[in-house]
């Protein structure tokens, strides 16, 4: 009986209904957890605008968890308008790894956007593993020591063998949801919110009643300097920005 109830509760139609009426909505699509041998990625922000360099640190999870040494990672970069920039594969992996994302690395682009990381292998020694590397992104301005923040949400996935991929992990509801950022920005010279659209479709959201539209895969930096309270309304059930705060020559990055 319990199994039956669990099955019904996790069924697509029941989740859609709960999310439609807003009753204990399900934020992440549970079906992706049932996939086999898949790497899930956040939409990690990168910045090369305004003197920024982004430092990305990640673990070799397949070596750590499954002792797979012949694995590699695939990194795919997009601009803020979801234009594809480049895809790289890194085959020489340590347990902890780092890459520097600057404008030379991104073909001279001084902008911002997002990227994904997927762990890949053709080894058949792995049994039904779904991993999500939260990773750490450090932001440095004009050579300053970096301020690090970890990944914020599951967005895209790809199978270890590269045979299939997908998105649509973050779900939406029929009605708009309120998300109040639980911090205040009064003490800073400048504050910015970095949003990446985590959904597979066009996203409309409001910050203190100002409307923003983000197409699929697009990202946006929004100046919210000096605001005491910030409320975000959207149908997306998990829209949490990365926050950049500035004061004098110092700055701080964290997730909301």
């Amino acid at each position, binding site marked *: 009986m319990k199994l039956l109830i669990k099955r019904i509760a996790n069924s697509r139609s029941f989740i859609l209904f709960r999310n439609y009426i807003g009753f204990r909505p399900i*934020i992440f699509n549970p079906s*992706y*957890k049932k996939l086999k041998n898949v790497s*899930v990625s956040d939409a990690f922000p990168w910045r090369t605008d305004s003197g920024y360099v982004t430092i990305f*640190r990640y*673990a070799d*999870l397949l070596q*750590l*968890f*499954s002792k797979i040494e012949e694995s590699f990672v695939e990194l795919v970069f997009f601009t803020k308008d979801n234009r594809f920039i480049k895809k790289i594969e890194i085959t020489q992996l*340590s*347990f*902890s*790894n780092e890459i520097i994302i600057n404008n030379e690395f991104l073909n001279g682009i001084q902008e911002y956007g997002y990227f994904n990381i997927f762990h890949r292998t053709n080894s058949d020694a792995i*049994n*039904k*593993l*779904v*991993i*999500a*590397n*939260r990773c*750490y992104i*450090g932001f440095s301005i004009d050579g*300053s*020591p*970096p*301020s*690090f*923040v*970890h990944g914020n949400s*599951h967005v895209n996935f790809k199978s270890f063998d590269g045979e299939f991929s997908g998105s649509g992990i973050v779900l939406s509801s029929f009605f708009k*949801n*309120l*998300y*109040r*950022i*639980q*911090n*205040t920005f009064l003490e800073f010279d400048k504050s910015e919110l970095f949003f990446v659209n985590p959904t597979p479709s066009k996203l409309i959201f409001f910050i203190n009643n100002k409307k923003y539209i983000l197409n699929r895969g697009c990202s946006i930096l929004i100046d919210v300097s000096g605001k*005491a*309270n910030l409320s975000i309304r959207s149908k997306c059930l*998990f829209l*949490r920005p990365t926050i950049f*705060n500035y*004061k*004098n*020559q*110092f700055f*701080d990055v*964290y*997730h*909301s």
Partner: protein
Amino acid sequence: MNFFFGIKSPHLNSKVTIPRFQNSSNPSKNHLLFELQIISDKWNISNIDNKESSGDFFIVNENIIEKDNFFLLATTDEVQKLINNGDKLIDLNNFTNTIPSYRANLQVLNSRGGFSSYQSEYPFSMTTKKGNILSPISSLLNKNADINIIFFKNIFQLPIQEKFSIFFINIKTKKILKKERVITNCLNEIIVDSTLIEPDIFLFTDKYIGVPIFCSIKNNYISLEHTHPPHEYIISENKFKVVSQLKQEFNEIINQTNC
């Protein structure tokens, strides 16, 4: 329920900003800020002067923050349960059990204006468990920093201050490179030598879990962030089995050395 904590250190000051509202609703007038600390082998809970509140936030300043205290939001009725029985922490409410997660803000700062922040929550569910924490060292520290610090906060349900160990282990050579003695129900501060900031070196605890927070300071710039426990990197249902096997390897290393 979540607890909140600050950082007391000779290298940094800190303040904790705790919202009086859930992330989808208006501020609660009933939830007050309380401080918890062990006194005479009992949990002692006391109300923090509400003059410390600022608008929709409680601000916990450095003059209140100690290595062995932490904070919670509760109503006066709810804390009565803990006042009546200080032998064990109890789950008083679900005010901070929200989806998306409830977020406080722990900001560290230095006298030159450098600052950095991290979310500061310590879930009640962690206080009921013993176990091991495993975390890479090099992901959030920097070899060329002026100083690298790991703050390890443990909150355990019983009002005890018991010693346990944090090991720095090279996963490839299976060698323990450093061992630090730390205590429960305390914010432990470990200065990390740059020789330990290598891709193959991991932090591993025996007996107790906790939250490792990594702090790196250079030229007065500060980076502060926590790492996730390994099971948060695995989504599939076999997550605890996979992580248990990995931790077993580390347990074998520390047990062999202890023999």
